[in-house]
């Protein structure tokens, strides 16, 4: 993925991450938590151009619950046309809970695969050991699930190369470059350029940037031939001091930017083809 891909007008895969596992309605009342709410948001975003929905499950109190992924998957299938479901296997919970993201029925077409641990607050490090990551990668391959490789920082790209060397991944590798605070890559244009330079051969990349970095760094991804993830999981605000009204608002703005920059948005079918899932 390069600037040449931009010049050639390669289509952009747009992912919406509606909910996540970090924030709740206490931070923004418009954040969807329940299956029907999430599905409605995903449907609206699909209509605007999102081809992948990154999905987390929440219980009736809005708390993280992998057990609720099935209900969210079912609701999305009921409401949406063809959007690709990408369940989370990430976050701070134990492996036994996170692996449920690839054991829904039917399995999701995609799932996230964190490439290593990161800090949460003062006392938590997520449990993404090499052993856990390899187990998830193997099971995803057995079930025909395309992993999105979550590179929270530069070192996680080393781990991505390592998984490729172990033969656990299939081309094209779909790498999500993540920028933000804490143990995430420091959000800057130069860091994005460097990470893109260090991608494996035959990779497609996506950019996720938190908060106010969402718009500038995803825009830069468009120019570098990459793909875009937006949504309220990563950013609760439309602009400084103005909370997002819904996920569609963020998706709509990205579609406008992408099209202004001369790239078209991939349909779910085209996204499957770009990612070797057809």
């Amino acid at each position: 993925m390069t600037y040449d891909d931009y010049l050639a007008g390669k289509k952009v895969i747009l992912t919406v991450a509606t909910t996540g596992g970090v924030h709740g309605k206490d931070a923004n009342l418009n954040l969807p938590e329940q299956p029907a709410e999430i599905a409605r948001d995903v449907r609206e975003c699909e209509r605007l151009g999102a081809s992948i929905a990154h999905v987390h499950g929440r219980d009736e109190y809005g708390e993280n619950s992998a057990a609720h992924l099935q209900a969210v998957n079912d609701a999305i299938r009921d409401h949406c046309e063809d959007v690709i479901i990408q369940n989370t296997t990430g976050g701070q919970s134990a492996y036994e809970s996170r692996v449920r993201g690839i054991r829904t029925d039917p399995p999701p077409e995609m799932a996230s695969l964190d490439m290593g641990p990161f800090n949460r607050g003062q006392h938590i490090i997520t449990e993404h050991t090499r052993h856990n990551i390899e187990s998830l990668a193997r099971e995803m391959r057995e079930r025909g699930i395309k992993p999105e490789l979550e590179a929270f920082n530069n070192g996680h790209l080393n781990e991505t190369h390592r998984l490729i060397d172990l033969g656990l991944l299939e081309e094209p590798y779909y790498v999500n470059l993540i920028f933000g605070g804490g143990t995430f890559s420091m959000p800057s244009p130069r860091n994005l350029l460097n990470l893109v330079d260090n991608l494996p051969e035959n990779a497609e990349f996506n950019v996720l940037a938190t908060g106010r970095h969402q718009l500038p760094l995803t825009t830069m991804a468009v120019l570098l031939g990459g793909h875009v993830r937006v949504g309220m999981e990563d950013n609760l605000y439309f602009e400084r001091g103005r909370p997002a009204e819904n996920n569609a608002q963020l998706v709509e703005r990205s579609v406008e930017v992408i099209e202004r920059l001369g790239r078209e948005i991939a349909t779910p079918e085209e996204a499957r083809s770009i990612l070797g899932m057809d």
Partner: protein
Amino acid sequence: MVCPYLEYRTHDESHEFDHPRAYCGASEAFVSPMQADVCNDRDRFDHASYCSVYRRLVAEIESGDD
């Protein structure tokens, strides 16, 4: 055992929700879903080891006892 400061509420002075949510009686604020894992001692977490608010409170109480 869940944290003794954990409550479930539908509102406080500045929030109103349709459903009850996790609320910390110690810091008098709703807690994030991520923090609620700790408040509920979910998975590998226990509030006595993983919550800064709880640890600080216990330290304050202990130092007050001295």
